[in-house]
């Protein structure tokens, strides 16, 4: 797995231990344990998502004859797996906390099931190359249990719980988006970009989650931009989450600044800079994402 490490240079400097975990293959015991844990969820995954799961099986079979998945795909999928494990355990704990109001219970259970299915898909694709599930500290305290989001699973903590959920979902969207170009070159024997395809199919689901959580936080009233399903500029009221939204105010895409294009539509349409920033989500690099989630990983 040494060949994967150069892809994480920025993080290596800030947290070598985390890099080590992300790039270490599962031990046989951990793999078996992971497999057992995955079996229940796998049935769910097969039911709701036969296509990507079948894709994973095909990819493994195909690459099994040529020495395994390409190293870059392994690296990116393990990165995604760590994020999905974070989200999956977060929602498991949220649902089990007893503080999610009845009205929101179905939404939380749905997202929990989706994140579990993503974990299962990635583990199934990676096989023995999958990293172990980390230990998490959802207070953001790096293992102290006394981080800025302490109490999020306790009575009175529901506002914090939803704020952290939003930050995780919006980070997840940006994380997958950032890896799409790097996944593009890798094709299965049938010529299809199986890795990119699967990542895209997960990416948009994370965006659906993000929109729902954001709107829940505003009790589904669209009067406050903070609680709309889309991101206005780089603003957020989630404390400590500025890095999650950094750069979202960008209006230039592939060399085209979209804001001046709106001028010709006036006076029929008055579409300002805020709306333009909402219309385009921005990627994050792997290092940026890992820096965001680092306080949550023990």
């Amino acid at each position: 797995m040494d060949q994967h490490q150069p892809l994480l240079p920025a993080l290596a400097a800030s947290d070598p231990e985390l890099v080590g975990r992300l790039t270490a293959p599962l031990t046989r015991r951990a793999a078996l344990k992971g497999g057992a844990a995955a079996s229940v969820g796998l049935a769910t995954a097969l039911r709701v998502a036969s296509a990507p799961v079948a894709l994973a099986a095909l990819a493994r079979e195909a690459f099994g004859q040529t020495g395994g998945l390409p190293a870059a795909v392994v690296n990116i999928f393990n990165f995604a797996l760590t994020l999905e494990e974070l989200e999956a355990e977060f929602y498991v704990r949220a649902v089990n906390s007893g503080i999610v109001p009845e009205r929101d219970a179905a939404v939380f259970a749905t997202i929990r099931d989706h994140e579990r299915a993503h974990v299962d898909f990635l583990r199934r694709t990676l096989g023995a190359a999958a990293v172990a599930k980390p230990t998490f500290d959802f207070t953001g305290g790096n293992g102290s249990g006394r981080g800025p989001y302490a109490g999020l699973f306790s009575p009175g903590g529901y506002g914090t719980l939803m704020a952290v959920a939003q930050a995780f979902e919006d980070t997840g969207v940006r994380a997958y988006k950032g890896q799409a170009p790097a996944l593009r070159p890798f094709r299965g024997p049938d010529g299809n970009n199986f890795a990119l395809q699967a990542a895209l199919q997960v990416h948009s689901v994370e965006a659906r989650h993000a929109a729902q959580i954001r709107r829940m936080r505003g009790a589904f009233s669209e009067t406050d931009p903070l609680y709309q399903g889309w991101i206005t500029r780089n603003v957020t009221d989630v404390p400590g989450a500025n890095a999650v939204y950094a750069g979202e105010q960008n209006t230039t895409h592939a060399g085209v600044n979209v804001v001046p294009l709106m001028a010709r539509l006036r006076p029929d349409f008055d579409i300002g800079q805020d709306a333009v920033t909402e219309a385009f989500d921005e990627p994050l690099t792997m290092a940026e994402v890992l820096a965001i989630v680092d306080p949550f990983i023990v």
Partner: protein
Amino acid sequence: MSAPPAERSRRDFLRAAGLAGVTLTVGGALAACTDTSTAPLAPRDASFAVVNGNNVTLDFSSDVDVLNYAYALEQLEAAFYTQVVATSGFTSRFTPSEQSILRDLRDHEIAHREFFRAALGTSAIPDLSVNFASINFTNRDSVLTTAQTFEDLGVGAYNGAGRYLTNEAFLAVAGKIVSVEARHASAIRAVRNGNTSSAFAPDAFDPALTPTQVLSAARPFVVQNITVVNA
């Protein structure tokens, strides 16, 4: 992510020029729009797209035509929400919160459309004519059902088309847009089915639709007959 267009794309466009049957002109207002502050993705070359009367053929071996495919869908969505908001009775048919969502969706889709129009330059397909005869714009359910169809279709279309893009800058842009379409789909689904429903995200994996599936669903709403080859 403001990477300049790659040289490779320029070569692709130039190569495309020799193969395109018809050089497109961009209709109406756009022709007068020569904003030099933008650096369009596409040099001012012909695209792969072949337009013959109402028949538009997009060739997915060209990144330009994959973007034209997205441009076609954004035209459709923008036209739909524009009519939704402009139809008399809009403010009584929808709650203030719903009006806010529908106006935002209109603005976002227009921004997407205008982005593609500018980015594609003279390689853009012409303005499409929409056929919304099957939609009752004065009926709340008809509007919301169509909105959900269009948003889900957009998500599936981008998810299915992404792998045809060879230029990483183009793929990055498609990625920036598809997640916003998914946010739209989530919101509209919640409006339609209730905020406590699981309908906002029906599966752990969104579909990746083929161009044939997408165009078949979009066909009733577009006058032009759009076909995709090499996909």
